């Protein structure tokens, strides 16, 4: 019996090749999408689970409030870890490391800038799981000037040599001894590194802030014992803060709270300042899981619609089988079995699509997924289960519907099964369009937001500015003389020096502006630059003057602020106001130095448009700056860059000319959004493609079933346009219903997504209308083929057999 069903199913599929193809390909595309997204989701959820102690590692983060502003940061300060370890027995280990440093690393002839350099405690190997291949885990990072490198770095610098015991020159200043090689950091880690220098190095160099409790510059991770509750530990922190920081905090009118974050939840759930990597977003996990489900749903709907629309071809078989003694149950089982066969056939196609689609998906999503059938063993069984589930989901209704035919009706010969379930089919078609239209609206809006961010007036001119960061480290020559040499070159308009540029962020410190008392400190970002910076970046002074190299007092006593700061402090006429800056005195004692506001610049963005513009304090310096910005002429750009490069070789022989363009770096800050946009676009296209495939099949059925009607109408005098109108009228109606449902859903979801941006567009009604019209046009074009063919058919042909 079973084989008889299989035989019938296969023969039926072969006989109706077109429909079988639509069904198999549709289901396969749906399942492949679903699988890709599942792989991606599984990878996102696997972040930081590779650590053996993953369930016991917590990050120490802080919540700082000063005056009206607050900051939730992902770091702790250097003295915290030792104090916590000593005071609380439930904390069995702790590890600290710094943010990533970008430094020059040299070994013999090889010299590269490395981005992933951190200073770390040796306990990083005890708290986390980074298997050491060579070297002693116990002591690798105990001594100052020791460094542990990853396999990749070992290959890069030492090729086949054994790196342990060799020395690397880092930052062109000190030699570090390589004491170990660890395996490369897995991609599903929320932080990574290429070189780990010992934390002791920092102490040896007497770095600033190592004993300051309020210097939140060190990422701190705690390992708890098996039985302790991290929530209870958190409750003990206020006392700790009070003991060590109470007095200071009171003096500046600030408060600090410490809190813990389970390490495996950081990637998806943590959105603090100073995160180690951009991180994922649990919202996107839900979003794309939803999209996967929807795409699968569209594929299933195609199946349901086509099977029921084609039911006339199976009706006779149902009737005959029933007269031969088949019960309804048997028939349902037969049809369900058939769907499952479709599903299983699709699995084969899915596996092919998965192989082809994965590289594409990776490049779109910026992920590094691979289908490893051993490691991700669940892919094939998962697919088979998915196929069975899809088979049952898509097959149930057709099975129920087909098996309900009564022989008396279907064996008469003029049976039209199509009309029976029209309403249900329309409902399904509307569902498909709702999904498609919502996805189109989403895609358009995401791209609009990206374009908005890229085109937004930033308050400075980001075009044609070339930036070379970290120049201070590579040459002994003063930055002032480098500037002079560069500005003499053809094609160079301005050269400026600063300690940062827009897009690279800035430190935050507290100030006491005029009109505020000492315990009402205000947080401001601080940028230091020279007198050419304003012109080079095209900042706009709205009041007062720029720094001047002629006035020696400008260095210590003058400041420029942005409009936001003036607004924040309630200053109508800011020029001349005094801001007292908190600096460390000779004896390490904090003290307040007064500076006078000499100018106000129009607000400009120091960061991406995710963040609001904050009050900004700009100080003047001509030395001790490490970043050079060069404004160049738009034409002959390549020649200018070549000149700069040659000059650089003279200034700093043996060093790379390391530069980037400001506009590129700014546009690059929206990588996450662009990836999202590309993903949304790809999946929208797939959803539409699937929907169209179904529609194409469906319209073939409709046209076929209505051939006779069309023939009669033509005989009665209907023109081709009349017929086309007749056939597409329903489509327009369905589409309008779908748009009406999709619009509010998409509007709500997108408005929530846009909350992430401090500067954002709103979801426009024209986007919704555009999406609906787009979907309608695509649908009409799809249906058009069959409609036109049906309308053009000579009625003599269709009516002849009557």
């Amino acid at each position, binding site marked *: 019996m079973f084989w008889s069903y299989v035989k019938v199913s296969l023969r039926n599929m072969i006989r109706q090749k077109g429909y079988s193809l639509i069904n198999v390909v549709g289901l396969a595309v749906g399942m492949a999408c679903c699988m890709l997204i599942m792989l991606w989701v599984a990878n996102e959820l696997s972040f930081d689970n590779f650590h053996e102690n993953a369930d016991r590692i917590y990050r120490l983060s802080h919540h700082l409030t000063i005056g009206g502003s607050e900051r939730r940061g992902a770091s702790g300060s250097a003295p915290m870890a030792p104090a916590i370890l000593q005071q609380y027995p439930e904390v069995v280990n702790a590890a600290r490391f710094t943010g990533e440093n970008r430094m020059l690393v040299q070994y013999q002839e090889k010299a590269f800038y490395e981005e992933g350099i951190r200073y770390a405690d040796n306990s990083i190997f005890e708290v986390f799981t980074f298997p050491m291949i060579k070297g002693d885990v116990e002591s690798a990072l105990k001594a100052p000037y020791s460094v542990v490198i990853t396999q990749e770095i070992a290959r890069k610098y030492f090729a086949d040599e054994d790196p342990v015991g060799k020395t690397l020159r880092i930052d062109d200043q000190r030699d570090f001894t390589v004491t170990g090689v660890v395996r490369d950091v897995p991609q599903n880690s929320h932080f990574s590194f290429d070189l780990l220098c010992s934390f002791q190095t920092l102490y040896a160099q007497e770095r600033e802030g190592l004993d300051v409790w309020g210097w939140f510059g060190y990422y701190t991770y705690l390992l708890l014992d098996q039985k302790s509750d991290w929530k209870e530990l958190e409750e003990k922190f206020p006392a700790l803060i009070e003991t060590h920081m109470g007095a200071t905090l009171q003096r500046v009118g600030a408060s600090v709270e410490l809190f813990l974050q389970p390490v495996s939840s950081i990637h998806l759930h943590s959105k603090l300042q100073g995160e180690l990597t951009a991180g994922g977003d649990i919202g996107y996990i839900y979003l794309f899981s939803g999209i996967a489900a929807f795409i699968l749903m569209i594929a299933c709907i195609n199946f349901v619609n086509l099977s029921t629309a084609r039911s006339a071809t199976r009706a006779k*078989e149902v009737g*005959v089988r029933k*007269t031969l003694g088949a*019960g309804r149950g048997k028939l349902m089982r037969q049809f369900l079995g058939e769907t499952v066969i479709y599903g299983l056939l699709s699995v084969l196609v899915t596996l092919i699509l998965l192989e082809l689609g994965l590289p594409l998906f990776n490049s779109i999503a910026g992920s590094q997924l691979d289908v490893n059938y051993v490691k991700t063993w669940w892919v094939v069984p998962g697919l088979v289960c998915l196929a069975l589930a899809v088979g049952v989901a898509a097959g149930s209704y057709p099975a129920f519907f087909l098996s309900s035919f009564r022989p008396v009706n279907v064996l008469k010969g003029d049976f039209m099964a199509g009309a029976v379930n029209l309403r249900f089919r329309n409902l399904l078609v509307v569902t498909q369009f709702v999904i498609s239209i919502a996805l189109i609206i989403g895609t358009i809006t995401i791209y609009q937001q990206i374009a908005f961010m890229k085109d937004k007036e930033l308050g400075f001119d980001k075009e044609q500015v070339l930036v070379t960061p970290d120049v201070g480290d590579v040459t002994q020559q003063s930055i002032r003389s480098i500037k002079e040499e560069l500005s003499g070159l053809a094609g160079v308009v301005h050269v400026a020096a600063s300690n940062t540029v827009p897009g690279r962020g800035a430190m935050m410190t507290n100030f006491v502006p005029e009109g505020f008392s000492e315990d009402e400190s205000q947080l401001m970002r601080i940028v230091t630059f020279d007198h050419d910076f304003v012109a080079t970046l095209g900042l706009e002074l709205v009041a007062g003057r720029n720094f001047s190299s002629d006035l020696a007092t400008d260095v210590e006593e003058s400041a420029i602020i942005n409009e936001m700061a003036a607004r924040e402090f309630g200053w109508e006429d800011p020029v001349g106001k005094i801001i007292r800056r908190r600096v460390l005195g000779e004896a390490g004692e904090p003290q307040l130095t007064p500076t006078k506001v000499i100018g106000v610049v129009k607000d400009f963005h120091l960061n991406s448009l995710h963040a609001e513009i904050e009050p900004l304090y700009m100080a003047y310096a001509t030395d001790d700056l490490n970043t050079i910005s060069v404004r160049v002429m738009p034409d002959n750009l390549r020649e200018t860059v070549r000149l700069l490069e040659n000059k650089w070789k003279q200034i700093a022989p043996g060093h790379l000319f390391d530069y980037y363009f400001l506009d590129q770096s700014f546009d690059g800050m929206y990588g996450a959004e662009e990836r999202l946009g590309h993903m949304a676009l790809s999946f929208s296209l797939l959803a539409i493609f699937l929907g169209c495939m179904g529609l194409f099949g469906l319209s073939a059925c409709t046209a076929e079933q209505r051939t006779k009607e069309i023939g009669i109408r033509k005989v009665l005098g209907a023109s081709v346009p009349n017929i086309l109108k007749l056939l597409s009228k329903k489509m327009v109606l369905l589409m309008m219903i779908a748009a009406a449902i999709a619009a509010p859903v998409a509007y709500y979801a997108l408005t929530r997504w846009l909350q992430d941006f401090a500067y954002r567009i709103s979801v426009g009604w024209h986007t919704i209308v555009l999406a609906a019209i787009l979907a309608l046009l695509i649908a009409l074009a799809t249906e058009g083929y069959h409609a036109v063919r049906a309308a053009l058919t000579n009625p003599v042909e269709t009516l002849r057999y009557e």
Partner: protein
Amino acid sequence: MNEQKLNAKEQETNSEELSMQNGVAPLIRTTNITKSYPSGFGKVFVLRNIDLEVSEGEFITIMGPSGAGKTTLLNIIGMLDEASEGEYSFLDQDVHKLNERKRAELYKQHMGFIFQSYHLIDDLTVYENLETPLLYKKVKGAERKSMVCDTLDRFQIVGKKDLFPSQLSGGQQQLVGVARAVIAKPRLLLADEPTGNLHSSQGEEIMQLLSKLNTEGTTIIQVTHSDKKASYGNRIIYLKDGWIVDKL
């Protein structure tokens, strides 16, 4: 006693046993069968007060003009359709009181259908078409095979067994249709214009075949328009506008 036997082992009870006894219950008895459809505020009647008795071994022809209710009557007898009113007993069981499953069981065991347009399953070969009713009757593999082979032999279509319906002529298809209808040895064969789509010579062959099956003991009820085809039977029932009439 006779009834108990019937219930216990229906399919093995053959007509000779029954006819040997006097005053035996007929195979089919309908009382006052009426079929109507609601239409607007009233009803449209397809069949009215049909009283009919058919005994085992008869070859009955139902004749009448288009729309007289011939097919409907045949469908009701074949349990594909239900009467709106009236009683119908088959083998002394009240069909109108049986539930769907019991009724399906009853007709699965005792009835075979032949259709004007053959209604073979397109996706199955001749062999598989013949096999299907046996599958639904849960006949075991070896037995099923021998039954199919016997039937192929008997209808001289062994050479066609691996062909699909579309590869056969109309007459050949109907031959398979008849073979499929009788393979499970039904007591009653219902044929709705079995030769309606065939050339006259092919039609003759089918009619002779039916006639032969009847002499071998199968009760047959056929619907036809043709007096000539009707002459193969031994009793004619005339229907007109849903009524049984003596003559057209």
